[in-house]
């Protein structure tokens, strides 16, 4: 498995990405309201704080600096409520936050790809600083109560160390390095426990001045508290922080001490066990454990601050673990093999004719358990599409701003769960389609929409739903729809269509997904980057899905992605042709017939058809399509299977139906891709119970190959 430092990095990336996603959705929601709720501010503050801490731990200084300033910004907003930000400044604040999020994302990407971090963070830093100044300036002008609040604080701090009689001297592990940063993080976690004005630390400037590291090594890091109770809390934070060698509580007698702190101490007592249990089950990773410990404490009654919203979320977090996807892949593979091996054992030909009551009973039980195991292992890989969907909010928002259009995104069925690999591979296609809808679909300006009798605000509906074995994702906009003439002209110009042919609307829509087609003559920032719908189609097909586009001029366009729920295991029908065995996906099969030659209708071109329920369906003979030597030729000796795939419907003629079986889909060896057999309807293969290989057919490609 991976080395220690790698797993810390993985954890850092995972945690930070999760936080950024959370941040993104908070800011998006807040932008709608044009304000932050108190809860949001606290959450953002905490996220910035955590990012700062963990980046400092990983020595990503640029990340740390930005997060630090953003945290400062929000500490001002938190202390003085959202009112401190004048209305006029708010859009700027939101933009700034989005820029910050983008910056973090960019940096994380650099880290993932082992690239050096951006050194030049001054622009963003300046923006944040300017925002802080602007907020401060506007606040000084108007808000009298705020300055009142600040006054006692200033008075308190001026009274010096006498006012902080309870000291805590912390020594870090020898040679652990970065003592100043560690001290700084300690200060941060203490800051969560008690108000800024209730403690001081020495040496000061640990956050910015590396020289203080030596001083800390020499004489320890000194934290001074106003009350004993704060110190008790801080001790928990100190013990849960990493690399702390020892700490010592030092009491400086102060005149005001006794009467004031006594009752509070009592209040601190019940809080203490809570705080102790929290760090106990944490891993020793300092950044990760300092923060949760800090979370646990604010719930205690003595705190003046309102309880943190994370109190509930904390619980939730602990019941989840993150697992490397490779392990899940491996699990799925092993479970797949177990399912097959199970049927190999229980259906072994050697058992035929034997009367084995106990064996049969146990085998049945085994069957039940393996089914359950399979269900569980599959469910592990299922994740809701909401993560991917939520990202689109941001894209729609950014593009509205950039293009000066008005549009909203409506999400339907975000909870729909899909296999993790599929979620990953549809993220880009969906993003591309949403961009297309924003760029080309939604009308240029609101007036055009009003003239067309539509709501001036455009709507993009992103929906996901299950249908048995497939998940259907629909991206629907209510824009101007596809201009068929323009698309056809473009296709002719690009040499994809010939000018003297008649094309149906469906054919024209298909041009959109042909490589080398992009309707916009200019390359914009958002779409038309040379990658078009053809890439979307390819990505979706890679996970076994299909893309269809429908459009009604003036009414908008709908792009539908139909994707199998999971690619790993499927229900298949085994059929034989000649000596070969093929697997057809059960969900494609509508019916099967035994027919006679008289039922077969032939057309002028020699094609065969079969009439069923009032419609004619083409008949494809597997034997002829695949040029196989064996296999039956008389239609009455074989069997006809009526297949459905998307909007295709046809009959396939095979020798024999062998039976239904759950199969583990194995991709074809990469070597065979050069023969282009995928486009001839071969999707993969699977190993049958007796060890033989069966070829899995792709019903829609098979039809295309036969035409």
């Amino acid at each position, binding site marked *: 498995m991976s080395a220690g430092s790698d797993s810390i990095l993985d954890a850092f990336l995972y945690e930070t990405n999760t936080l950024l996603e959370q941040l993104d959705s908070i800011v998006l929601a807040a932008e709608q309201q044009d304000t932050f709720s108190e809860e949001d501010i606290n959450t953002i503050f905490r996220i910035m704080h955590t990012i700062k801490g963990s980046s400092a731990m990983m020595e990503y200084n640029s990340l740390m600096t930005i997060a630090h300033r953003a945290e400062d910004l929000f500490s001002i907003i938190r202390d003085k409520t959202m009112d401190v930000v004048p209305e006029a400044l708010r859009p700027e604040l939101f933009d700034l936050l989005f820029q910050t999020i983008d910056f973090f994302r960019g940096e994380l990407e650099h880290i993932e790809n082992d690239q050096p971090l951006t050194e030049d963070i001054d622009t963003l830093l300046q923006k944040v600083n300017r925002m802080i100044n602007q907020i401060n300036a506007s606040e000084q002008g108007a808000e009298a109560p705020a300055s009142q609040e600040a006054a006692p604080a200033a008075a308190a701090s001026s009274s010096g160390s006498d006012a902080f009689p309870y000291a805590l001297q912390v020594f870090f592990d020898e040679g652990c390095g970065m003592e100043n940063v560690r001290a700084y993080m300690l200060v941060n976690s203490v800051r969560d426990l008690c108000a800024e004005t209730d403690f001081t630390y020495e040496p000061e400037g640990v956050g910015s001045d590396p020289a203080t590291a030596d001083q800390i090594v020499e004489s320890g890091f000194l934290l001074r508290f106003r009350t004993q109770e704060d110190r008790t809390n801080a001790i928990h934070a100190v013990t849960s922080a990493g690399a702390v060698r020892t700490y010592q509580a030092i009491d400086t007698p102060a005149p005001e001490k006794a009467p004031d702190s006594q009752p509070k101490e009592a209040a601190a007592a019940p809080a203490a066990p809570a705080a102790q249990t929290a760090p106990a089950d944490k891993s020793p990773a300092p950044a990760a454990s300092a923060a949760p410990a800090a979370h646990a404490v604010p719930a205690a009654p003595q705190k003046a601050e309102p309880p943190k919203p994370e109190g509930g979320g904390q619980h939730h977090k602990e019941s989840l673990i993150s697992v490397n996807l490779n392990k899940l892949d491996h699990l799925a593979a092993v479970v797949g093999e177990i399912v097959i091996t199970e049927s190999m054992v229980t259906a072994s030909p050697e058992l035929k004719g034997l009367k084995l009551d106990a064996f049969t009973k146990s085998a049945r039980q085994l069957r039940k358990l393996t089914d359950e195991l399979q269900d569980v292992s599959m469910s592990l890989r299922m994740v809701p599409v909401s993560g991917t969907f939520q990202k689109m909010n941001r894209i729609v928002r950014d593009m509205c701003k950039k293009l000066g259009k008005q549009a909203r995104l409506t999400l339907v069925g975000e909870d729909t769960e899909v296999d993790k690999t599929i979620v990953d591979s549809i993220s880009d296609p969906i993003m591309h389609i949403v961009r297309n809808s924003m760029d080309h679909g939604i009308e240029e300006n609101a007036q055009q929409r009003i003239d067309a009798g539509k709501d001036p605000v455009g709507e993009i509906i992103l929906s996901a739903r299950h249908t048995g074995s497939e998940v259907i994702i629909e991206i629907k906009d209510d824009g101007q729809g596809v201009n068929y003439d323009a698309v056809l002209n473009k296709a002719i110009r690009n040499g994809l269509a010939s000018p003297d042919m008649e094309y149906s609307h469906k054919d024209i829509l298909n041009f959109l997904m042909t490589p080398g087609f992009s309707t916009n003559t200019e390359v914009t920032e958002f779409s038309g980057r040379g990658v078009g719908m053809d890439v979307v189609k390819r990505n979706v097909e890679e996970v076994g899905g299909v893309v269809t586009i429908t459009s009604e001029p003036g009414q908008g366009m709908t792009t539908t992605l139909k994707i199998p729920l999971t690619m790993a295991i499927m229900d298949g029908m085994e059929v034989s042709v000649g000596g070969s065995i093929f697997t057809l996906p059960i969900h494609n099969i509508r019916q099967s017939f035994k027919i006679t030659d008289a039922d077969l209708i032939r057309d002028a071109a020699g094609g065969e058809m079969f009439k069923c329920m009032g419609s004619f369906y083409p008949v494809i003979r597997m034997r002829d399509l*695949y040029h196989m030597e064996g296999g039956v030729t008389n239609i009455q000796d074989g069997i006809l299977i009526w297949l459905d795939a998307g909007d295709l419907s046809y009959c396939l003629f095979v020798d024999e139906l062998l039976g239904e079986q759950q199969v583990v889909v194995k991709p074809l060896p990469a070597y*065979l891709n050069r023969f282009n057999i995928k486009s001839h309807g071969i999707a993969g293969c699977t190993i049958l119970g007796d060890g033989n290989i069966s*070829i899995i057919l792709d019903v829609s490609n098979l039809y295309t190959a036969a035409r």
Partner: protein
Amino acid sequence: MTEQDVLYDEMMDDGSDTPHVETQTEKYMLFVCDNLLFGMPAEAVVEIITNHVITPLPLVPSHVRGVINLRGQIIPIVDIRRFLGRSDLDSNCIIILQVEDNQIGIFVDRVEKMVDIAVDSILPAPAQNSRDLVCGMCSLEDGQTMLTFDCAAFLEHT
């Protein structure tokens, strides 16, 4: 650094024709296909299997015999005889190769033995030889000539 490493390094530095040092050898596996004696670099050979059921694939060139199930892995099998345009022989010997990331099996007449070949005794093959599968030639002690099998080219051309 051991003595062996020093020697090895010197050889790499001076080129292959340094006369005074011990010659560097490589292991080759000899196999026969239509009376041609091929040598396969031993590091490319995963295993040799016999009597395996091959599942034919439709719509592939005839030299691709199909796929086999080797302990749960699907491995494509290429028939060297057919690739070279020769008639089929009743044999059942498959060599499983690891070429880059691919495992692939080749269908051959029979496997002979392993030999150590001095690296500098392998001479470049004349260009027109045997449809690009040979990247060098070498005379063996018993007088036979070994054609070194070019795995990369094989993967590319078949």
